[in-house]
């Protein structure tokens, strides 16, 4: 007896095997699968198999009030939930023509950038584990946890913050809290050199990651690659700069780039972005400390009687994984008529991953997946 999906091993005489890489595989990121056809340990063909985390988010959102959806959206991407909230809030604000208080925008940037740091630490922790370097994973996850502590103190939740709502944020952040974050940033900055020593300058890692899963700029553009993965090909595109939202146009930061386009370059871009994000957060803290306003939310309608004017909007946010967009359609009702979520990983984890893995070696599959920072729940929604 076999499960419907349990495919028979192909005849050995062709020297090619079909292998289910995941969903229950330590090398896969999240609950996701790749069906790879291997010849020896060389991958001849690969096909992504998703849907293990499918919850029908877009359908669920159509059935809930505009305010209720703030609880639903962060769950689309588990490791980096803040951009999801942000993107949804931006869309609703655009439709409702809300004027968000300046302080709220800076608070949101604070959340977004901390979330980016946390997600990056998590990702190269995971990447390190795929090349057998567990210490780095332990460090990355432990340091990420310190950021989660900050989130807990600011928003009341460790992983799902549900902090950003259309019109502003739910709570203010006090000066003491900002000082704590400042201290944490000092600590993280010191840790960066530790990470360099242990991981980014580590020969084993460099040898494994260099020239693995190379993306040329042309390929990257035509395959719809975005975010750090695109910047690793030498293209300095960043939604924060190109399609500025919140107060990113008032913030000084560099777009981190690398040129090689391989797994190493992608990680180095993340490493540089860590420093940039820390730099951004420091600016935000400066601003928030000087700013004496307590206005953190514009007047939103009673959540139980809230109709959003009919219209449609496409909002984009730079998440830690790339370009995240929401297409929100309202027919003037109390619930969204349609919400389409374009997670960055819907490109990275499917077509790009399939293409990069093909021709490579089996041992690199996990590494490539982590270097692309593919997030399956975003794909499946």
């Amino acid at each position, binding site marked *: *007896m076999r499960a419907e999906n349990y495919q028979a091993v192909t005849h050995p005489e062709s020297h090619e095997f079909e292998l289910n890489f995941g969903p229950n595989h330590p090398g896969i990121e999240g609950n996701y699968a790749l069906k790879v056809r291997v010849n020896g340990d060389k991958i001849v063909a690969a096909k992504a198999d998703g849907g293990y985390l499918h919850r029908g988010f877009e359908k669920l959102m159509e059935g809930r009030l505009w305010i209720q959806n703030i609880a639903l959206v962060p769950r689309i991407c588990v490791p980096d939930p803040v951009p999801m909230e942000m993107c949804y809030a931006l869309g609703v604000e655009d439709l409702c023509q809300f004027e968000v208080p300046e302080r709220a925008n800076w608070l949101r940037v604070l959340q977004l950038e901390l979330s980016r740091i946390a997600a990056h630490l998590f990702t190269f922790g995971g990447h390190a584990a795929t090349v057998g370097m567990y210490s780095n994973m332990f460090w990355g996850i432990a340091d990420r946890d310190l950021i989660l502590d900050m989130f807990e103190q600011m928003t009341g939740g460790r992983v799902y913050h549900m902090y950003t709502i259309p019109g502003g944020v739910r709570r203010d952040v006090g000066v003491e809290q900002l000082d704590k974050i400042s201290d944490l940033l000092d600590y993280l900055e010191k840790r960066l050199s530790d990470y360099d020593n242990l991981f980014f300058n580590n020969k084993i890692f460099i040898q494994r990651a260099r020239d693995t899963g190379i993306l040329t700029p042309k390929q990257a553009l035509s395959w719809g690659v975005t975010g750090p993965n695109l910047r690793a090909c030498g293209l300095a595109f960043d939604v924060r700069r190109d399609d500025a939202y919140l107060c990113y146009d008032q913030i000084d930061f560099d777009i981190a780039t690398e040129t090689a386009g391989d797994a190493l370059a992608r990680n180095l871009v993340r490493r540089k972005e860590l420093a940039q994000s820390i730099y951004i957060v420091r600016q935000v803290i400066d601003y928030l400390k000087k700013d004496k306003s307590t206005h953190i939310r514009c007047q939103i309608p009673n959540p139980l009687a809230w109709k959003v004017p009919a219209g449609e909007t496409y909002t984009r946010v730079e998440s830690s994984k790339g370009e995240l967009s929401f297409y929100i359609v309202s027919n003037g009702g109390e619930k969204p008529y349609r919400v389409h979520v374009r997670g960055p990983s819907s490109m990275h984890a499917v077509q790009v991953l399939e293409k990069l893995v093909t021709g490579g070696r089996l041992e690199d599959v996990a590494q490539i997946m982590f270097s692309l920072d593919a997030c399956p729940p975003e794909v*499946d929604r």
Partner: protein
Amino acid sequence: MKDVIPIQTNNTETIAVSKNSKNIYQQAIDTFSNFCRARSLFVLHYCTGCGAIELPPAMTSRFDMERLGIQPMVTPRQADILLITGYVSIKTLKRVILTYEQMQGPKYVIGICSCTVNGGMYWQSYATAKVLSEYLPVDMYIAGCMPRPEAVLTGLQQLMKKIEKGEANSWENYFKRYDYYLGNQQHLFGDTWHTPTDILEEARHYHLYGAESTGNNTARLIKYTVEHDLTKLDAPLREKDSMTKRGKK
């Protein structure tokens, strides 16, 4: 799910008989083995849903599951604990069941997050299963959306206590009441649902074959396997064996 068999009282007859029949040495060995078992647990490394994001912190230095003797394990056959970390989509549930059946007894299932209890956030979703215990026997639930690592650790400690007392026997229910679980699975996956593991054979192996092990649902399964010439339950493996042997010749 209107045609599901109502939950009946557990048939504890077999277990009572087996316990009574044990002599004092066997009981001492049982106590000792429970003691050891509780202190060396392997958690299957399978992230089914969002709750999995709190497992890395729980496993690594900050909350350090290893000090309790718990470690992640990559293969189902060597794992003791199946953590269901949140919602299970129907597609995942099939894999979870396949995985669970491959795990060797005694095995424990922990349901984490709201979703495993009553559907959680995704109660309206067409794609996720709602009540996990209808498909698998669950030993322990940890509340939260998602539970913090501390809560996960507490849950694991509770499970350890339960194992040490020899009370974590839910896995036996899967064999004793296979018909119930299979029926619910069939309701969700269709009447042709079948897995590579012959549960009834294993139930006999564990001496857990009881009155509720078989019923209408298992009859349906057996009918299907006979019709499709899959009477040998591990047929694919045997085919493969024979092929390799042929290859060697």
